[in-house]
């Protein structure tokens, strides 16, 4: 017989109590595991949606000619002489190392034009990706799908007195107003959008582009390294991360995470308190037995070993049970949270679950066990 046998025997004798203690701690572990899983999944899901919502990387030609202001950024080259961005660059962007993080690549060409006697900026875009990137775009009329269709920004439409179905001439080419954008409050209101191939044709720009907007899925991805990777592929371009967009997203992520951490900490503290109280009362019940151990020659460390071994066993079991409960709980909660999958049930979650359960279980037992080991043997033996 070894000292730890005694702990095992005691746990077996007090089956119900042992099971309840394991269950209590397991519940805390389960909540922590489930919260971590759900939070990670929410973050993942949320950041995917947010990342699709607007670009977070902007690519411009390198130029000193800052002649157009776009969304607070100066866009070079409305009247560029040397085109540095082209259609071939789109493929290069999609070929970077972190290419799986690239959600949308939106090319644009800007050109000033005289329309109905007024000077406006015409933007050539790929309407599909533009609508995908700018989910807030709403329009009256129909979505442009013919090569000569126009989508007019609200301010431009007003200035030119346009409505859906109107005919229009741009650079001696015929166009038709398909839809009018409802007011967006951005630079887009003042623009007239036509398809990119049409713009390249009517302005005689060949394959040239004025700007590329990229939306990278940045859940746990280093935006800086994506920017660097694009910069490497496009040495003549200026690649910028839109910090503000990213930080807003991060802020939302952090709030979700903080909420889950606070909840986990509360639950874990509660479990620790429960184990502590349980251990303290169990020590009082076991005073006599501890007196016997001491009388037959156990040192304090042997008494400590018996008691801490017991809580180690309880903690390990709670770690296993809690982990299993946690995953099951997270999976069951999926429909409630509107999630399709659960993220983050890797080895790190298992290790965290065990570390947490052992830390809580054993640290809550240390003081009661220490107190028990310090009992004077005669005092313990007198409690008959």
């Amino acid at each position, binding site marked *: *017989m*070894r*000292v730890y*046998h*005694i702990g095992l*025997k*005691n746990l*077996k*004798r007090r089956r119900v109590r042992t099971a309840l203690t394991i269950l209590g701690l397991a519940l805390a572990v389960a909540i922590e595991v489930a919260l971590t899983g759900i939070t990670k999944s929410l973050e993942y899901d949320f950041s995917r949606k947010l990342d699709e919502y607007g670009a977070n990387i902007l690519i411009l030609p390198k130029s000193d000619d800052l002649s157009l202001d776009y969304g607070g950024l100066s866009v070079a080259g409305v009247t560029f002489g040397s085109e540095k961005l082209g259609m071939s660059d789109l493929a290069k962007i999609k070929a970077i190392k972190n290419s799986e993080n690239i959600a949308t690549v939106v090319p644009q060409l800007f050109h000033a034009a005289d329309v109905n006697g007024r000077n406006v900026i015409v933007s050539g875009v790929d309407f599909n990706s533009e609508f995908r990137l700018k989910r807030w775009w709403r329009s009256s009329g129909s979505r442009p799908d013919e090569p000569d269709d126009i989508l007019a920004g609200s301010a431009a439409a007003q200035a030119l007195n346009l409505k859906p179905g109107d005919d229009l001439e741009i650079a001696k080419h015929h166009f038709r107003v398909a839809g009018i954008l409802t007011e967006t409050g951005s630079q887009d209101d003042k623009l007239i959008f036509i398809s990119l191939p049409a713009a390249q044709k009517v302005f005689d720009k060949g394959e040239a582009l004025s700007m590329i907007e990229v939306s990278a899925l940045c859940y746990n991805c280093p935006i800086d390294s994506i920017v660097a990777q694009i910069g490497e592929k496009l040495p003549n371009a200026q690649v910028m991360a839109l910090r503000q967009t990213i930080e807003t997203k991060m802020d939302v992520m952090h709030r979700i995470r903080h909420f889950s951490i606070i909840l986990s900490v509360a639950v874990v503290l509660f479990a620790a308190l429960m184990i502590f109280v349980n251990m303290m009362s169990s020590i009082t019940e076991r005073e*006599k*037995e501890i*007196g*016997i*151990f*001491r*009388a*037959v*020659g*156990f*040192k*304090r*460390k*042997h008494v400590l070993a018996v008691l801490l071994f017991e809580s180690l066993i309880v903690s390990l079991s709670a770690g296993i049970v809690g982990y299993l409960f946690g995953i099951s709980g997270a999976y069951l909660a999926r429909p409630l949270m509107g999630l399709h999958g659960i993220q983050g049930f890797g080895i790190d979650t298992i290790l965290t679950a065990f570390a947490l359960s052992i830390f809580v279980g054993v640290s809550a037992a240390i003081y009661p066990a220490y107190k028990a080991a310090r009992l*004077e*043997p*005669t005092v313990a*033996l007198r409690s*008959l």
Partner: protein
Amino acid sequence: MSLIEIENLSKVYTIGDTSTHALRAVSLQIDDGEFVTVMGPSGSGKSTFLTIVGGLSAPMSGRVVIDEIDIYSLRRDGLSDLRREYIGFVFQSFNLVPYLNVLENVLLPLAPTGMQAKKQTAVAGDILTEVGLYEKAKHLPGELSGGEQQRVAIARALINDPLIILADEPTGNLDTATSESIMQLFKLLNERGKTILMVTHNPGYRSYSTRAIDFRDGTIVGDDMKYIPQMSADYREGREFQQNIWTHD
């Protein structure tokens, strides 16, 4: 030098404003091989005396020297080692661990020693046979009679082959016939060389002992020595062997 040298032991228990003088400067020498019964009225300090001699609680003043070791000058863990190597305790209420079976209760003092499982079981088997409980090794204490439980406690006290057995009213919870058989067992152990210090309320049990001490109000008021037994040469060798283990530990 006697096996146990007790010098001027005093102990005062203070609870609130009331102090009880449980022991007042008690001195006594007990030689190897003696069987000493300790008698006296309730509250006269017998149990206190036994726990101090057994290294379970420190006196307020005085010394206990066992086998030339001043036991309360030992560091804390040393006192635990001393209890395990030199002393076997037997209590009135048996004090078995309820969730350990007979064999495990007997093996309890060996649990921290690192002795091999095989050897442990072999030693315990011999001792259980000796106290007549080999068949019940797998029973829990709750399934045994009082006399059987006390035999388990005695077996546990013997497992480390200690020099000294301290027993506090070991027959206090047993009927007359069972008590007699337990006393027979103690007598046998004494004849095999164990030094025994036993508190009892039964004056009839003096006949099993070689010496009787009387306590009153924390002091010894009577000391009736009948004879000092001779140690056999075999036994002495065994003792020296044990001493070597102790000093090299």
